[in-house]
């Protein structure tokens, strides 16, 4: 506890500093590598679509005393030879049977036979038939949502930060998160259901949320970058990342805790369902989102900013001063201590003494 607090102090003062922005090329290359890998996996392996995307028939028998998947297989083999059912036990006492697309009459007949075979009431057998066209609709809506959201976000962030580069960097980080998450889905082979799509779309909001908090600090640290010649833009941005590191970690932990709770309850108590699918996507996406706000968004933003003539000129001036030895931030070993500009900083009128007895 004291360790984290102390670590936070050192990060804040710049005593301890991780050269994340300085090594931006390395981090960006790693991220590009991950994204390319994700896309390759996606192209060659592909995600495994859930039944809602494949289309088909699903039965769920709840409250089965003896959850044996063989019974269902036998019933299906007897009634619909040629069909290959996927039978799984969910949550201990439920059996889920997934089949291809069936005729209406077969759906009803199989529901009855399954109920008889497992000795449950027919009302405990929920059946659902999902047509193959549904997925198209969901996918097109998800893509439409993505595009609308990105346009909106670019506008809002450009206006708020008054810097389109930040909006671009945030968006790239966002796409990185999506690609990465979907890549992990493809790699592990998790099924993509409508609930996972909810999860993916929520990642959009979360990823940006996280990035915005870091960028806000970057903006604060660098708002007067040209008014001083101690530090370069990149150094101040790096300071911001380091200063928000504790927050980023705390935030991720706090956000992931409830999600893990759902994931746990979802997988061990309920069996696969809406809750589990959403939380799985969120779990992966939030972890990736935290990573990207630190290692992708800010380095990328600095990279974009560094091409700006004003910043190039400023950086050159800072370096010149350091070489001349007229800068007081270079340590004995030649490294630079980037920290909050403590001395002489105006603390605001609120810090001034007040006269008493006056309103």
């Amino acid at each position: 506890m004291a360790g984290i607090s102390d670590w936070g102090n050192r990060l804040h003062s710049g005593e301890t500093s991780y050269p994340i922005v300085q090594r931006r090329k390395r981090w960006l290359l790693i991220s590009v590598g991950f994204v390319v890998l994700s896309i390759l996996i996606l192209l060659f392996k592909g995600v495994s679509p859930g039944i809602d995307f494949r289309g088909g028939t699903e039965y769920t028998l709840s409250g089965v005393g003896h959850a044996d998947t063989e019974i269902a297989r036998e019933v299906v083999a007897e009634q619909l030879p040629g069909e290959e059912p996927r039978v799984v036990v969910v949550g201990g006492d439920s059996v889920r049977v997934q089949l291809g697309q069936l005729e209406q009459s077969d759906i009803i007949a199989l529901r009855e036979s399954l109920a008889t075979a497992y000795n449950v009431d027919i009302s405990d057998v929920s059946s659902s038939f999902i047509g193959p066209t549904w997925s198209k609709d969901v996918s097109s809506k998800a893509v439409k949502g993505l595009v609308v959201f990105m346009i909106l976000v670019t506008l809002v962030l450009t206006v708020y930060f008054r810097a389109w580069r930040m909006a671009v960097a945030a968006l790239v980080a966002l796409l990185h998160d999506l690609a990465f998450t979907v890549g992990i889905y493809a790699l592990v082979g998790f099924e993509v259901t409508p609930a996972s799509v909810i999860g993916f779309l929520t990642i959009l909001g979360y990823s940006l949320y996280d990035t915005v908090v870091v960028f806000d600090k970057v903006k604060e640290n660098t708002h007067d970058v040209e008014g001083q010649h101690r530090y370069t833009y990149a150094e101040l941005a790096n300071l911001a990342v380091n200063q928000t590191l504790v927050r980023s970690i705390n935030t991720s932990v706090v956000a992931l805790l409830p999600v893990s709770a759902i994931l746990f309850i979802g997988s061990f108590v309920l069996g696969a369902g809406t809750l589990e699918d959403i939380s799985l996507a969120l779990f992966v996406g939030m972890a990736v989102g935290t990573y990207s706000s630190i290692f992708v968004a800010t380095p990328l933003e600095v990279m974009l900013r560094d091409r700006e003539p004003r910043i190039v000129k400023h950086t050159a001036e800072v370096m010149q001063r350091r070489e001349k030895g007229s800068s007081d931030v270079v340590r004995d070993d030649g490294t630079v201590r980037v920290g909050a500009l403590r001395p002489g900083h105006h603390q605001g009128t609120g810090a001034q003494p007040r006269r008493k007895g006056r309103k």
Partner: protein
Amino acid sequence: MSSAAKGARRTLAGLLWILVILYGLLGFGVATDKTTVTPGLALDLAGGRQIILQARTIDGSSIDPGDLKQAVEIIRKRVDASGTAEAEITTQGDRNIVVGLPGEPDESTLDLVRKSAQLQFRPVLFVGAPGPSTPGPEGVDPSASPEPTPGATASPEASQEPERPDATPAPTPAPAVDTPKPTDPSSMDWITPEIDAKFSALDCTDPENLTNGDVGRPDEAIVACRADGLAKLILGPQELTGEDLQTATAGPTLNAQTGAATGSFEVRLDLTKSGGEKFRKVTERLATYYNPALGDTVSQDVRAQFGVLLDGVVITHPQVSKAIPGGKAQITGDFTMKEAQQLANQLKFGAIPLTLDVLTDDHISATKGADELRSGLIAGAIGLLLVVIYSVFQYRALGAVTVGSLLMAGGVSYVLITLLSWGLGYRLSLAGVAGLIVSIGITADSFIVYFERVKDELREGRSLPAAVEHGWSRAKRTIIISDVVSFMAAAVLYWLAVGSVRGFAFTLGLTTLVDLGVVILFTHPTLVLLARTRFFGDGHKWSGLDPRQLGQEAMYKGRGRVATGGVGGGSVGVSDGLTLAERKAARAKAAASSTTAEKE
């Protein structure tokens, strides 16, 4: 008391008022039995019946999305009119309609869902005032009918043959009829004493009768209300149906000679080939009741009118002056553009060339839903507990503020959802519960952003009250912009999404707003007040805001006093516990005593 603390107290009092009002509203709703203490649950949690209908065109062509939407509208209207609350009717994909009915709906409600729209053309036999006690046609002057209805203009070359055609489609006689049925659909013999009694009993001033009437049998006369509730009618057997109508459009009425717009609007009916033929025969017969000498006056025989019924309610009953061949007819009258458009739409509703097949008919067991809800709530409780433990571990006593704020956010979200469930019919689904659980993390993050900022300000050497004020002014912006982004994501999700996604987006968006409210109205004022307590203000080591743990070796206590100790140890500056004035006085005293000593 400083103005900041006063403001904080006022804000907290304001929040208390908001809470009192919200819960008072809910309490009022519960006390008057209008709502319950818990929010309504969606189908997947409460259990119920879900029917997926697949639309099919009669001729096998592709489905027009507009037609599908209209079909949804019709089903919604019918279900709403049947008194079944909380039905959820949506399209899924490009040909499915999903109808969710909570609980155990009865078969008659399900029938309303399954059947296609019923558009009927029936000859008008009698028109009366809408009240329930209006006597039947026996011995009553038909001219008592209210305002004349719009007339259908006929093409000029209409033949005026007096021959009365057979009723089309040919009525198949019902097996159990005691009296032989008249062959002429316009015959007054259709008005049996039974129909007359029904007519007297029908109350068209009751709005309930205006949305979903009895469609009756196609081969019998029926009584029906006019959609505006200003008249009730007796109509003969069905002669045409929605299938005979191709489409209906609205447009400005053009002068027959000059082609110039007359300023009023009309509805144009476009009938199918066979429908046009039937219509010609019907209008030929109806035109025989038309007396050109009387014109559009009230004394004109109502039997020259044909009624168009949508789901058993008369949407229009225009007068026919001439037989109308060719399958095209206009309904003219004193329509505004809006009225004409509405009528055309209603006619189109009935003419939607879609047949709805039941694709699935799911029973969602209520016990399964209850299990899932319980598990969701357990997951939420565990998640909340973990967040509480973590924040107490990280922020010590400040963690209590997090917990309080989270509880406050939970309380506000709960009452809002319950009220929305009451007022807007919002239903909490499993995805919605997931949204609530996920929002715990995002809400808690606002506090983390805030506390970390305050800590940063403390590290910069501010006193706690100043750090709280300054940290807040910075954190506020971050919290607002990040919540705006989060809310935008939820809003986009909501507008573009289908089914369960919406439930999730809704709770996520709602809790984002609640989060913003709670952090401004609760967390910040609480912290302002706590900063003034000894425990927090003096930086107790369990307060989570101990400057010594934040790297400030010494803490300026005001008036020249500095507290030292803690992690860094050692004293900085003067730390004799004296104020500036005391020191000055001591120096003066020392100086005075030394001078006196010299004198001596």
